[in-house]
């Protein structure tokens, strides 16, 4: 087996070789600018972009004209939130989102607050799902947008998107979803799900980095966002800049592959994920974080109580790549805000590991991971004073810890 094994597919995915192959000509021979209307180089590039738009639209059941190309999900999130805030300023200034959103959404909302807008950050229940009643109660006459992610990047929890959009629409409010972790992994249908705006990115679906999409509904209702960059008026005036043709071709191909293979892949990955999860839950005091039913098929997030996540990963990160909610792995030195929002104490958040399986994950790799993680947890518990206290029946909450 080739080491290290990559089980961090929620962070990014390797490119599918078929995607790379589709892209290559557009770096060299087919280098035209898709906006050049006067010659064959431009037409060739435009055709390629059109094909990609169709492949992408098909995956989410949109119209190709509704696909706006961006540099990735971060830009799409920003464009959706800031663009709606500006475009619908005469209607209201209130946005509703949730505390477990990606930073791209949360920080765009912070920006809105600085501009004088109002933002409601809905809490989540212990399983990571939002409370629909709370959502509805948060809507005011000033509300212009509900922004709730499809699938969460850390725990994989999938929100009840259809119900959320129904509530938003009942009150005449637009619905935006960051579907970065869901598109290409589970069925996402902008019509059936009632989505007005949707963001995702190439590099989570075996496509290239630096290219993403904002879907903007054109009918029932017709939605518009104010451009956040001034320039040549590309993408129906919503996102200027010469199109990244090779990236877009790659994203299109990636979507086409997902369209064809997603159902079988989800089945295969959920079986492997469940096997991994069930094996690791054989360890004492191991807990799955987030709702296990409403969940992306390839993700599991597990806390191994009484061991610290970064220390744990060090035991196997030469051979297995995963990520942790431990503070030590983040620049902020704070444990994961997502896990804390699920009501986990800091100690359990520090003890969490996220496993993200992907298209190229094999059964052998899962076997290896089960073995390596189990060994590492056992080894670190032998070294953990907290584990010893737990085993001696000491209540850790009864101890006065010196906080620093």
């Amino acid at each position, binding site marked *: 087996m080739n080491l290290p094994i990559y089980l961090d597919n929620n962070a990014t995915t390797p490119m599918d070789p078929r995607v790379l192959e589709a892209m290559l000509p557009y770096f060299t021979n087919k280098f035209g600018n898709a906006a050049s209307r006067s010659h064959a180089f431009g037409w060739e590039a435009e055709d390629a972009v059109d094909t990609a738009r169709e492949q992408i639209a098909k995956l989410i059941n949109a119209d190709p004209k509704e696909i706006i190309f961006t540099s990735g999900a971060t830009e799409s999130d920003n464009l959706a939130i800031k663009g709606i805030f500006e475009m619908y300023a005469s209607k209201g200034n209130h946005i509703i989102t949730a505390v477990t959103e990606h930073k791209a959404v949360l920080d765009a909302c912070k920006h809105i607050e600085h501009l004088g807008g109002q933002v409601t950050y809905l809490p989540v229940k212990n399983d990571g799902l939002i409370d629909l009643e709370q959502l509805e109660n948060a809507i005011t006459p000033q509300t212009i947008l509900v922004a709730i992610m499809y699938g969460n990047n850390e725990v994989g929890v999938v929100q009840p998107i259809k119900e959320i959009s129904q509530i938003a629409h009942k009150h005449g409010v637009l619905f935006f979803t960051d579907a970065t972790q869901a598109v290409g992994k589970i069925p996402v249908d902008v019509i059936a799900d009632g989505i007005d705006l949707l963001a995702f990115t190439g590099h989570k679906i075996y496509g290239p980095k630096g290219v993403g999409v904002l879907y903007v509904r054109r009918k029932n209702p017709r939605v518009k966002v104010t451009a956040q960059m001034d320039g040549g008026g590309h993408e129906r005036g919503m996102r200027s800049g010469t199109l990244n043709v090779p990236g877009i071709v790659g994203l299109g191909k990636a979507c086409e592959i997902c369209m064809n293979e997603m159902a079988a892949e989800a089945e295969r990955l959920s079986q492997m994920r469940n096997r991994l999860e069930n094996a690791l839950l054989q360890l004492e005091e191991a807990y799955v974080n987030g709702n296990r039913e409403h969940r992306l098929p390839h993700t599991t997030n597990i806390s191994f109580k*009484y*061991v*610290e996540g*970064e*220390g744990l990963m*060090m*035991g196997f990160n030469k051979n297995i790549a995963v990520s942790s909610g*431990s*503070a*030590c792995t983040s620049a902020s*030195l704070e*444990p994961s805000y997502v896990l804390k929002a699920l009501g986990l*104490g*800091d*100690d359990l958040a*520090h003890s969490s590991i996220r496993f993200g399986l992907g298209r190229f994950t094999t059964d052998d790799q899962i076997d290896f991971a089960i073995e390596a993680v189990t060994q590492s947890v056992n080894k670190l518990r*032998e*070294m*953990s*004073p*907290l*584990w*010893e206290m737990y085993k001696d029946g000491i209540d*850790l909450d009864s*101890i006065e*810890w*010196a*906080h*620093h």
Partner: protein
Amino acid sequence: MAYSEKVIDHYNNPKNVGTLDKSQTNVGTGLVGAPECGDVMRLQIQVDEITGTITDAKFKTFGCGSAIASSSLATEWLKGKTVDQALTIDNMDIVEELNLPPVKIHCSVLAEDAIKAAINDYRVKNGLPQLETVAVH
């Protein structure tokens, strides 16, 4: 962030993991840090009451690789020193020895705190006054 060779070595082959009988009067125990902060160190020393020499030292640590390495190194350094000599161990010595990057300096501070806490516990048990306590970090 890549770990230094020495941190990896202590992590893979930690020295002196274990537990001493804390009810013994010649054993001092220091427990520092907090689970919510992601680091807890327990460091114990066993002292020869006649010579004042540390004859054994053990640790258990909940924390990252650098925290484990810092406490492992601390136990190594403690053995054979007198209690007074042990007080001179400075966290920056640990930083230097393990090549800890700036974000991991707190691990060495915690190890120094654990040493002082263990010595204080030993002193109190043996009727000696507590030392100027460890600065709170």
